[in-house]
């Protein structure tokens, strides 16, 4: 049997598995909006663990990280720092977000911020930032998916058709089974992608170099320029090292597809267990990525597109059946992020826009139907964005990584009681200043003084938030007492989230 038949066939087997899981999830679905959007706030440790790690790691982790090691060398190992920080943020901040969600019934990030700051403007600003800066990731993941299927089939399935097939599969199981389907498929996808990266990298290391240690020895001897910062092209300067750590930890956690997961946990202890242990998965995924990227730099130094180093090495050095399984793992990495982004955007648009401003008192079945319609709309938008190149999109994608980071002061103001309170005017002014600064420091004057534009932006955001909050009215005492009081009781009181 030809290699492309094996590789493509295995990817379709994987897609079938995800569709079956979506159908099974549908049989457990009740006509309950909280069940459809938030898994009924009953996600246990194993399911939550695998959905968080599978969602965090996208097509970028599978394809892009190898490309980064290939081009910029070991500086990308800074990724370990930001993945460990994601664990700490989940531990400290995620458990507080869970407690507030449980106590006050929040569904989206905007629910929490609008309640504390007593402002519909804060709700709208949060919803807009949540959607605009993540909807573009649909495009990124969809492009990765189209590319994987096109490569696996040796060009027999076009990029456009591959993108459509995989977007459609993700949208179908999301519409059928809601967040439960996303979580269940993420369990399979999380395990599959992790095993696939490790097996693929080790197979390449053994077949090409005689083992990982032999690979390291050759890199030390032949490409020492890849083994210190800032790397061959000077990318990992101190400012970029620090900036990527900030943007890819806080910036990702504050995106709605991760943030909403904190609401879904069955308990606060589950979130803390998640925070303490997810870095093991998140960080260790980059160990084989280093082998792929650095090994690839030795044996295929002239490859035109570095992000393709992993599949290119597989096609050259691994058996077809293994290549198929591993590319299915790459598909899993992209789909597990894509379905979560589709779900998060559906949740934000249904809850913060439709339910708030269009039909306020519909039935759960009505909102579930609307949510499914929104998924179809997002599917269409994602597909068009994937197969079309707009110049303004390139700019927006460049901004998107640090976009959600601009919610940071507002979120900290809710979750960390302190004597100095942020105000609605403060956080709105901060978000506006942060977004303007982000545009200037990423697009107009990229990364001034070598420091990542996202860091400049969030610094401007904090300064304006603090300055404006100092001279404007705080949230009402009743609201501060209600929300900060709940946090105080949960963290330092009896640990309860009841009133």
């Amino acid at each position, binding site marked *: 049997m030809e290699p492309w038949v094996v590789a493509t066939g295995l990817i379709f087997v994987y897609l079938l598995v995800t569709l079956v899981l979506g159908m099974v999830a549908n049989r457990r679905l009740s006509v309950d909006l909280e069940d459809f959007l938030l898994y009924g706030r009953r996600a246990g440790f194993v399911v939550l663990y695998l959905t968080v790690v599978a969602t965090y790691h996208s097509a970028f982790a599978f394809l892009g990280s190898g490309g980064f090691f290939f081009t910029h060398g070991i500086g990308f190992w800074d990724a370990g720092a930001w993945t460990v920080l994601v664990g700490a943020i989940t531990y400290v901040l995620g458990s507080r977000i869970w407690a507030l969600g449980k106590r006050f019934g929040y569904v989206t990030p905007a629910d929490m911020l609008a309640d504390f700051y007593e402002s519909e403007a804060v709700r709208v600003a949060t919803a807009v930032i949540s959607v605009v800066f993540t909807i573009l990731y649909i495009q990124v993941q969809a492009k990765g998916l189209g590319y994987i299927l096109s490569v696996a089939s040796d060009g027999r399935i076009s990029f456009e058709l591959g993108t459509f097939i995989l977007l459609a599969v993700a949208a179908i199981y999301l519409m059928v089974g809601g967040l439960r389907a996303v979580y269940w498929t993420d369990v399979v996808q999380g395990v599959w992608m992790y095993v696939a990266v490790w097996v693929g990298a080790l197979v390449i290391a053994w077949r090409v170099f005689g083992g990982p240690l032999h690979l390291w020895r050759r890199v030390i001897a032949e490409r020492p320029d890849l083994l*210190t910062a800032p790397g061959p092209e000077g990318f990992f300067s101190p400012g970029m090292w620090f900036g990527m750590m900030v943007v890819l930890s806080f910036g990702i956690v504050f995106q709605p597809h991760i943030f909403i997961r904190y609401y879904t946990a069955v308990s606060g202890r589950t979130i803390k267990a998640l925070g303490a242990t997810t870095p093991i998965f998140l960080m260790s995924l980059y160990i084989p990525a280093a082998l792929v990227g650095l090994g690839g730099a030795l044996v295929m130094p002239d490859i035109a597109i570095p992000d393709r180093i992993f599949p290119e090495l597989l096609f050259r050095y691994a058996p077809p059946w293994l290549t198929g399984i591993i590319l299915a793992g790459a598909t899993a990495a992209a789909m597990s992020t894509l379905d979560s982004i589709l779900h998060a955007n559906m949740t934000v648009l249904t809850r913060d826009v439709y339910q708030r401003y269009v039909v306020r008192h519909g039935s759960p079945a009505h909102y579930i139907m609307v949510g499914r319609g929104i998924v179809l709309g997002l599917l269409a938008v994602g597909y068009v964005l994937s197969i079309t190149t707009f110049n303004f999109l390139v700019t927006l994608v460049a901004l998107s990584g640090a976009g959600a980071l601009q919610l940071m002061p507002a979120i900290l103001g809710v979750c960390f009681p302190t*004597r100095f309170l942020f105000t609605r005017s403060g956080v709105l002014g901060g978000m506006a200043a942060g977004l303007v600064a982000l545009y200037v420091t990423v697009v107009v004057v990229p990364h001034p003084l070598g420091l990542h534009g996202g860091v400049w932006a969030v610094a401007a955001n904090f300064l304006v938030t603090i300055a404006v909050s100092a001279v404007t*009215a705080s949230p009402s005492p009743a609201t501060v007492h209600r929300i900060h009081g709940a946090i105080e009781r949960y963290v330092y009181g009896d640990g309860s989230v009841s009133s």
Partner: protein
Amino acid sequence: MPPAHHDDPPHFRSHYLPRTRAGRVSTVLFLLLFALTQPPLVFLLANRIRPVILGMPFLYVYLLAIYVALIGVLLYAYRRKV
């Protein structure tokens, strides 16, 4: 003075400073170890290939060891119910 909303809002002790011993130990250890992974310390202390450790370059092993230690701090905090 900022204008009051209705009455002065209630004040809670800052949550930025941990109040328990295990909380303080976890926070200080995490911040110290994390600082070792970031500029300027990582560039001053570890941005080199040699000594090669177990066949791997120094910077790689240095960072891996600190990442494992950081996860250890998170597990310590979890066990102590911080």
